[in-house]
């Protein structure tokens, strides 16, 4: 499956009020094209899943949250797995998607690892269920069962050659403001009140 194909399936499958926390590169460009008003774009490899956990806990279990991470990002943040594993009972509203293209695409396309990597067994080591998919139909099936319990979905992506166009117009600061305004609408409360006197 290509990243674009997966995002098409994702857009058709998840609830319209789904909140996203997104990694960088091609993943963020696809998310920006579709979900920009309800996505935190995080230019910080290794931090997408922990931050998405905080958001999922903060919005309560009735609101779905999707973390959109990359293989490089997950591998950089493996230390988060035991912490996430102890919280899974409170994270039924969180789906972690890992786009595994096997390369550092934004950095020029060199491999993200030169060893074998069994994502399923990696998750099992911490008691986490990890589903690996590489066909569009399997992606749709996996997404249809999301948000009943915490899940990690590894999507084997092959996007072919070519440079990813940079169309995203938000920096980290603007993304934070847009994201918090989304959360305020979602939760029906004011979160940012930067001053208390006029």
């Amino acid at each position, binding site marked *: 499956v290509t990243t674009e194909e997966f995002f098409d399936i994702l857009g058709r499958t998840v609830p319209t009020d789904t909140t996203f926390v997104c990694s960088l590169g091609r993943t963020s460009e696809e998310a920006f094209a579709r979900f920009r008003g309800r996505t935190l774009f995080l230019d910080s490899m290794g931090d997408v899943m*922990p931050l998405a956990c905080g958001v999922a806990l903060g919005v309560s279990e009735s609101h779905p949250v999707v973390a959109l991470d990359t293989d490089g990002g997950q591998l950089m*943040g493996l230390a988060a797995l*035991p*912490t996430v594993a102890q919280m899974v009972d409170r994270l039924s509203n969180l789906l972690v998607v890992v786009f595994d293209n096997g390369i550092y695409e934004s950095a020029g396309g060199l491999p993200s690892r030169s060893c074998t990597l069994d994502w399923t067994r990696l998750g099992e080591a911490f008691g986490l269920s990890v589903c690996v998919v590489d066909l569009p139909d399997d992606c749709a099936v996996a997404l249809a069962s999301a948000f009943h319990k915490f899940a990690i979905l590894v999507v084997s992506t092959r996007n072919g050659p070519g440079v990813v166009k940079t169309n995203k117009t938000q920096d980290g*600061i603007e993304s934070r403001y847009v994201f918090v305004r989304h959360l305020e609408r979602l939760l029906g409360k004011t979160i940012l009140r*930067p001053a208390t006197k006029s």
Partner: protein
Amino acid sequence: VSCAIALDALLRAGVETVVALPDSKLSPLCAHLMQSDQVTYIQATHEATAVGIAAGLTLCGVKSLVVMENSGLRTACETLARFNLSHGLYCCFLISHRGAFGERNWWGFGHHETMFPILRMLRIRWSHVRSLAELPSRIGDAYEMLAAGQCSVALIAESSLIEDLRR
């Protein structure tokens, strides 16, 4: 009793979740928070994970506190730099001051040497807390400052506060 007073100060400030990587100085407080049903206690295995979870909660308007040793600033430095300097993602810390004046352990000296430069570089505002009596007002001030949305905020737990927490 002293840890119960500290917990009460957190609750009065509206803290709902503590994300901690316990160290020898703050572990009595962490143990107390872990057993409390008044605050959600999450124990992390890496300070960057704790920062990520706390920053996510803060985005949602949930008051959270990261509890860690000052060496955790170094461990989580990349995450903190990205969050604080590039994204405006902030959180509140209670940080033990390992390596403070009187430190008896050789390995603690570097923790002190690096703490303040890192706090300054990452634009984290801080205040020292030297006693349990000071804690409630300092925590209140910390969350008021965090609510302005301009920086992360750290409370530096000095040895005298640590002694109070052990009583």
